């Protein structure tokens, strides 16, 4: 109880919020709406770690939305847009509508600031139809990924989209952020899956962006709305390709002495015309994380076990754990260097590469065999099936419950960049070096393509002094993303830009940003949709 009282004090009722609510109730009497303080706080943030740091500093919801609404169908979304447009026309306090899926985004994509109207789409969550003969499904965008997959599984089908956040994110969120699942090498990213979508644009128009069978005449509006992060329109439904649920699955682990050797092996695998479902290469430190048991304890425990395990072989003792945490948190730069020094000596297997294959039995088996030969030719050490299945069992262990590290006086975050193969090692080294002074950093390479690969950096930094932490955190991101663009990589492979990376859009896109601005001017001329994301006002 004490906690909630504190929260109430921190977010004193805003009068503008109340008047907005009244207007909204007047204009759209059938729309479910709430300005309850609990809702406003709950929806004030997504899972952007920068926000979690602010929470540690006691700022739970400094800029809460005015209210939350739950439209039932796209007609209500249209009405909402019309209402907001009309408001924008008469001046005064502009209305900002924020498309909201499940708030699992990690870059502040739904944090549009005080007074915004959060439009939670989760009541639009039905599977409209499954067409097994066309290998297609049509679903409303508010459906949780897990539920959609479940429905498909009942028909013997799969979407093949497995982000770690599968249980706490929506189809609309995937499409809006160009999300990637763990089996992207086989099934593609979400942009490879959608054939057409229904969107309600910022002009209130309902547009079907393409056809069930791709193609058509003119530019692909489907591709232009995927990744639009709520800045061009509400994605209200989508048609996606589906596949027969895999009849067979094979997993295996391989060891590589150095990260670069592992990368080279992945490149050759992908360029040989094979299509593994899972490809994940862990750098030296991440390998220890990946192989230790995530089941038995918290992420923090695993991390500390891993660090202290490094120092003393196996079986960490409590004092060593504490020491390790202290070391990480006070001198991340030293820790990083230490690990680098120790890395070659610690693990005989070096870096772990997990490879998985799935689908038709015969196709799976032959590809696994060919892939195995290719990896052995690349100098891999066969570690057998165990490391592969170990990963598989723990693949959703990354929890949407926020990391316990936050309460242990640390912050954690991830940075997922990508580049073509020729730049990949530069990208790896560059970003690593840029982050290392601020946080303890490890990485894995997942989402591989014939022409390149993504790198997923995880980092842990000290969060002892709230004020300073945010500064350090921001500096870390600035340095990291600068290094990424300098190395010729993209600043995001699948988390999106949101607000936290918005000021990097020019580095990312150069002058082609003008095309995006043109889309914004076309689809949201009144600037009522999620201003601020993607660097768009």
């Amino acid at each position, binding site marked *: 109880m004490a906690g909630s009282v504190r929260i109430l004090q921190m977010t004193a009722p805003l009068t503008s919020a109340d008047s907005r609510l009244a207007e909204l109730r007047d204009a759209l009497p059938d729309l479910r709406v709430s300005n309850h303080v609990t809702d406003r706080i709950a929806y004030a943030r997504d899972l952007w770690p920068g926000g979690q740091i602010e929470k540690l500093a006691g700022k739970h919801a400094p800029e809460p939305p005015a209210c939350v609404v739950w439209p039932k169908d796209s007609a209500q979304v249209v009405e909402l847009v019309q209402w907001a447009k009309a408001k924008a026309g008469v001046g005064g306090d502009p209305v900002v509508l924020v498309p909201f899926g499940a708030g699992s985004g990690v870059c502040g994509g739904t944090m549009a600031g005080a007074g915004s109207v959060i439009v939670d789409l989760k009541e639009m969550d039905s599977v409209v139809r499954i*067409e097994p*003969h*066309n*290998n297609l499904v049509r679903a409303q965008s508010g459906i949780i990924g897990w539920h959609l997959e479940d429905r498909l599984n009942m028909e013997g089908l799969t979407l093949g989209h497995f982000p770690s956040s599968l249980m706490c994110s929506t189809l609309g969120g995937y499409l809006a952020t*160009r*999300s*990637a699942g763990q089996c992207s090498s086989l099934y593609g*990213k979400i942009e490879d899956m959608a054939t057409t979508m229904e969107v309600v644009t910022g002009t209130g128009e309902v*547009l*079907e*962006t*393409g056809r*069930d*069978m*791709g*193609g*058509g*005449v*003119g*530019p*692909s*509006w489907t*591709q*232009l709305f995927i990744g639009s992060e709520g800045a*061009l329109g509400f994605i209200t439904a989508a048609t996606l*390709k589906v*596949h*027969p649920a895999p009849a067979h699955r094979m997993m295996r682990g391989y060891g590589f002495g150095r990260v670069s050797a592992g990368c080279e092996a992945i490149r050759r695998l992908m*360029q040989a*015309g*094979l299509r593994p479902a899972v490809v994940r290469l862990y750098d030296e430190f991440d390998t220890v994380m990946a192989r230790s048991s995530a089941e038995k304890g918290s992420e923090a425990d695993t991390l500390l076990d891993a660090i202290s395990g490094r120092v003393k072989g196996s079986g960490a003792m409590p004092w060593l754990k504490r020491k390790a945490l202290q070391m990480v948190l006070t001198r991340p730069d030293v820790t990083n260097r230490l690990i680098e020094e120790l890395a070659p000596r610690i693990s005989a297997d070096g870096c772990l590469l997990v490879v998985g294959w799935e*689908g*038709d039995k015969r*196709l799976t088996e032959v590809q696994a065999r*060919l892939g195995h030969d290719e990896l052995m030719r690349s100098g891999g050490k066969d570690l057998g099936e165990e490391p592969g299945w170990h990963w598989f069992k723990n693949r959703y262990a990354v929890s949407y419950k926020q990391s316990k590290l936050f309460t242990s006086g640390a912050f954690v975050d991830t940075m997922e960049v*990508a580049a*073509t193969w*020729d730049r990949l090692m530069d990208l790896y080294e560059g970003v690593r070096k840029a982050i290392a002074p601020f946080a303890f950093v490890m990485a894995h390479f997942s989402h591989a393509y*014939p022409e*390149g*690969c*993504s790198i997923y950096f995880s980092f842990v930094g000290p969060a002892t002094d709230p004020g300073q932490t945010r500064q350090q955190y921001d500096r870390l991101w600035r340095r990291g993303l600068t290094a990424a663009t300098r190395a010729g990589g*993209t600043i*995001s*492979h699948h988390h*999106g830009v949101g607000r936290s*990376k918005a000021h990097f*859009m020019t580095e*990312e*896109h*150069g*002058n*082609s940003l*003008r*095309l995006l601005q*043109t*889309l914004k*001017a*076309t689809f949201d001329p009144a600037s009522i949709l999620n201003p601020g994301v*993607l660097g768009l006002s």
Partner: protein
Amino acid sequence: MSVPQSEITGQLAEAVGPENLSSSPVDTIAHALDFWPRALMKSRSGPWPRGPKWVVWPGAAAEVAHVLRIASAYALPVIPYGGGSSMVGGASPRGDRPWIVINCKRMCNILDMDEVSMVVHVQAGIVGVELEERLNARGFSLGHVPTSMTTATLGGWLSTQSAGMLSSRYGRVGDLCLGLTAVLPDGQVVHTRVAPRRATGPELAHLLIGAEGTLGVITAAHLRLHRLPLHRRFDSFCFEQVAPAMGALRQSLAAGVRPLVARIQRDPRLRRSDREQDAPEPTPADLSRRVLLLAYEGPVELVEVEQEIVRDLATALGGEGLGQAPARRWWGQRFAAGFRMTPLLVQDHLFADYVELGATWQALSGLYDNLEEAFEKRGWRTRITVEHARLEGASLGCAFWGEADSAEAALEAYDEAWRLAARVCHAGGGGLGHVYGGGQHRAALLDDNAKQRLAVLTEVKRKLDPAGIMNPGILGTE
């Protein structure tokens, strides 16, 4: 409106160099028509259409930019021109305005070849076959092989989101594009950046891919490549009807097989040139028979398994194995079919064209039958091929031709044939204009959803091209 033409000529000469500018009839006549059958038919009885006023051959994006700035200043309409193989009038001038044609073919260099990532950076004016040959020489292939390979350019492909005969495996040309350079109507040169994949907003290259030159001129692109295959295999199956052939193909794709080629067509053994001298006339059963032609490539063991899977599925649906020969034979003649239709159009009262529509598998066999029936009822001949097969559906390519009493009647019949095709297509849930784009022709024939999408294009165009200089009249733009 009086346009100071000599002044413009002088400025254009400055932009591209006088040797790369022409108003000579040799050049303007050559750029007056593309491969749109209707315009070709019209020209055989009527006067040769007016060509552009100017043809320019810029050598770089900066020169294209210069030309576009001149065009903007005088509000002159511009056509970006690749190989002129457009089947829909996308590359030919219309009305009697003084057009500038930007012929892109001088921009034909490979700028960079990254063999590690298997990515090529190449200028957009390069002709398809030349690009492919140059890549082959280094052990790579683009995998984009439209029938018009010898004529069409990379810029034309991208602008029409072209689909080649290997699309089941490699996708459309837009799927191969990792980034591009384009000159916008006001002369700004923009580059969309290269990454294997990204999540930093919409994929901006897609605003120009498929825009058919209405938003800008594409001058270069980064394309993903694959290695030239060591193994290629062929296979063929004969079915009593088209539907089980489609079923076998659909199931194979769902199983994860990635054929290089997959098409369903009439039994090639019925072809006059292939028949024995004294063979009996084909029976109706012969005529309804369909053959599934397949090719595979990749590691040999993988190819063998793919072949096995398809064979099992085809056999289960009553397919009779015909072995490699029919598919291999088709492969050998794969470019011959393309321009076969063109001579038809020179004969005065004939009309012909190629309807291409896309549909999901469930809609496909109904569309196939209805289209065939509708055309045959009018006494028009058709040959329908199922091509560009993918997980969720395929295209029907329906070549049609017929003879009328006069040149005018032939044009009328042609228009009627298209209206008919559009009706059948819409009623059956297909999408018209699935391969060749819209050009001057298809926009009016589209269903309401597709028209709405083009209306959106017009909106975007107003923003990027307020003077309306870029290929106005294409895709329903003004």
